[in-house]
């Protein structure tokens, strides 16, 4: 993949670039602030942009704003946002739009998992940090449909929300693909969502549902 990195800490940026190159990707742009990032992405038209949420010039959420701007320019651009802390609301909105990942920075340590997330997003899927997912699945109300799920179904739902496909979920939980399919059908029914054959769209529907629940 051709990748552009937007990250103000040179140390982290170079380390990440090295990891990516090591994994066989091509880092075509390295930007230290939001402006340079937008320039690099516009110039290079990469497959994926990895963007730190907090960047100069303002040092607040410049990275997230740059991501929205880039997404508006090119709906096909895959974006993975890296953050230092868990932020639920906006991240879920972004991720539920598809082709976006939201991960804490230290997920980089699990190199294989991290690379898998990058691949999923680039392929049109999504990646949501497990910490954010845990917040999303927290208890809300007494008549919560989530309370109807079996523990197994909850596990499956969490992995779905992280953006994993059926095979990924099956591998993680040591289940067969068929069993996972059954669980997912149960979940979709209990949450009142329409079954759709396409995995990515199913994930996004679940995320949207969780985001709405979070706001309510």
């Amino acid at each position, binding site marked *: 993949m051709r990748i552009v990195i937007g990250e103000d*800490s040179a*140390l*982290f940026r170079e*380390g*990440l670039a*090295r*990891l990516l190159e*090591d994994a066989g990707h091509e880092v075509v742009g390295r930007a230290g602030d939001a402006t340079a990032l937008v320039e690099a992405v516009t110039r290079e038209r990469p497959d994926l942009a990895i963007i730190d949420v*907090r960047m100069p010039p303002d*040092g607040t959420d410049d990275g997230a704003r740059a991501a929205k701007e880039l997404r508006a320019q090119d709906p096909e651009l895959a974006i993975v946002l890296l953050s*230092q*802390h868990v932020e639920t609301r906006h991240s879920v909105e972004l991720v539920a739009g598809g082709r976006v990942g939201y991960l804490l*920075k*230290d997920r*980089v*340590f699990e*190199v294989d998992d991290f690379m898998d997330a990058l691949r999923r997003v680039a392929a049109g899927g999504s990646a949501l940090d497990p910490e954010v997912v845990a917040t999303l699945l927290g208890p809300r109300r007494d008549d919560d449909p989530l309370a109807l799920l079996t523990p197994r179904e909850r596990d499956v739902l969490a992995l779905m929300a992280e953006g994993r496909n059926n095979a990924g979920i099956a591998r993680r939980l040591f289940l067969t693909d068929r069993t996972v399919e059954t669980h997912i059908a149960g979940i979709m029914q209990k949450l009142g969502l329409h079954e759709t054959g396409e995995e990515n769209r199913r994930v996004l529907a679940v995320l949207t549902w969780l985001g709405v629940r979070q706001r309510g």
Partner: protein
Amino acid sequence: MVARRAAVVSAVCAALALVMAVCFLAAAPNRTSWLTLAIGVLVVPATTGLSVLVSRRRDGATVGMLLGLLSLSVAVVVAKEIWLQWLATTDDPTRWAWLVAVTAENAWWVLATFGLLLLHFPDGRVPSRRWRWVPAALVVATTVTQVDGALADEPFRAPLAGLARPFGPPPGWWQLCALVCFVGVLALVLASAVSLLLRFRRADRTQRQQIKWLALAGIGLPLYPLLCGVEILVWGEPLWFSGAIGLASLIATPLAAGIAVLRYDLYDVDKALGLAVTWGVVTALLLAVYGAVSSATGVLVGRGSEIGIALGTAAAALLLLPAVRLVRRAVDARMYPLRRSALTAVDELHREVSAGDARPEQLEERLRGALRDRELRVGFRVPGSTAYLDAGGEPVPPSGVLVLQDDEPTGVLVRGSGPASSELLREVADRCSTLVEVVRLRSEVARALRDAQDSRTRLVQIGYEERRRMERDLHDGAQQRLVSLGMQLRLAQRHLDDGTVDVDELLDQSVAELGTAVAELRQLAHGLRPGSLDDGLPAALSNLVRTLPMTVAMDVDDGPLPDAVATTAYFVASEAITNAVKHSEATRIELHVVRRDGQLLVRVTDNGCGGANLGLRSGLADRVAALGGSLRVASPVGSGTEVEAALPFERPSCAS
């Protein structure tokens, strides 16, 4: 000028007449003469003195002169009466028969001057142009009456009843003319009294007060000739009753007129009227009780018994105070509603405040209603200043009646356009002093609470800002480094076997990163609370100044301190010194930490450019205030900065 001179001349003549009276009395002392002289002494000197005082005022010349003439006419009548007594004792009174006849009716002049006084009171002018002829007519009619007295053919009054009339009987037409003039005198004096009423209707506040004064004393004046007439009609001669009323009026009227012109505001005339009526009623009531009780006892025990007198006195004494209160309330309600309503309003508010149904700040609104004065202001003295503010915080001018508490002014009542007199306001001020004090204390407490609340809010905000800064420092510093470190270790791990990476160098880099992260964390922790404080304030401060690019002269007390005091002292010193090093261009900084009177004084001085920014203060002052201490920053531009914090380190004892 003429009027003023006339007043003085009258005064001299009146004095002469009194001296003459004394001489005649000395030659032929008797009871009637003594009584007459007593009246003269009661009336003449006081009236004369007032006339001179009043005539010296710019607007009092005419009234002063009339008072002088009044005094003179009384003196002349007194002198004449005593002279008559003396004359009766001489061998040959016939020699002076003509003078006896001429002065026979000169007492009418007293009444006439009274009338003139009423006509010209209080500004020296008649009420309107229509009244111009009245003074002249009064003088002419009185003259005719006196002449008629000289010509009359009835016998003289006792003791000269035997003296023959020196002038012949007047013709018939004259008698008719004299009768008309006599009635004219009475009518004109009555009209003068009425003129005062007319004037009252049109008068402003001051004139009304003045007229009320005269009314207070002059109640008896129109009554005197009427009562006199009634007595003559019924009993054939004037009795003591009309005389007493006339005499009381005679004494009181000039006094009242004088007070009215000189100091109409001296005393609340409404209140005086109310008091006069109250005490009159109470006296009558007590006399009745005394009489009833003592005669009832007399019937039971026997007449003249001491028990009866004792019981009567006791009953009267027991009833005195409640009777005064009851009658006062009733009289006030009828005659002086303003006073009654104002005092009731204050008492009611008092009660409601005690019951928690009202706030003492409503005093102004209540008094405005009760005193019918919508512009009335109630000011409360600001603690520690001489300014007055109303309950809403608006300034109130101090030009009014002061409310005093232990002789210290605590508030002020400022009259707007209402009818309340200063005397009434003084009474209201007395009555509401507690309420005013309560409002003052409440506002003081509210201010202190507000200050404390502000300080707390600032402390919380500063706390949040510090947290935010610390979060940023952690994310951007140590956390970032640790994440990078983790990535490097992963890389090293992946390439451990294939030899494409210099693992040795990578590990060196990683350890260096780790060292930097630890240093950053240490710095951050130090910002939270310097660990060296565990070794005492002197050690922490020594550490602090060791890192500075310049030497700081230190003198630090090393006694044990509560942790909060030591920490705050450290931050005061740290902020002040850092500020001096960064911004003041100072070449010398001194730090003193000493104990004095249970307080720790932290003083940082420098010889820099001064003008230290106040941002220094906000956070520090609140931290210092949170410990009950105080912070002072003196930083005049161009002459150095001095920061001093006083931190109490012992709890103040309760018995201070």
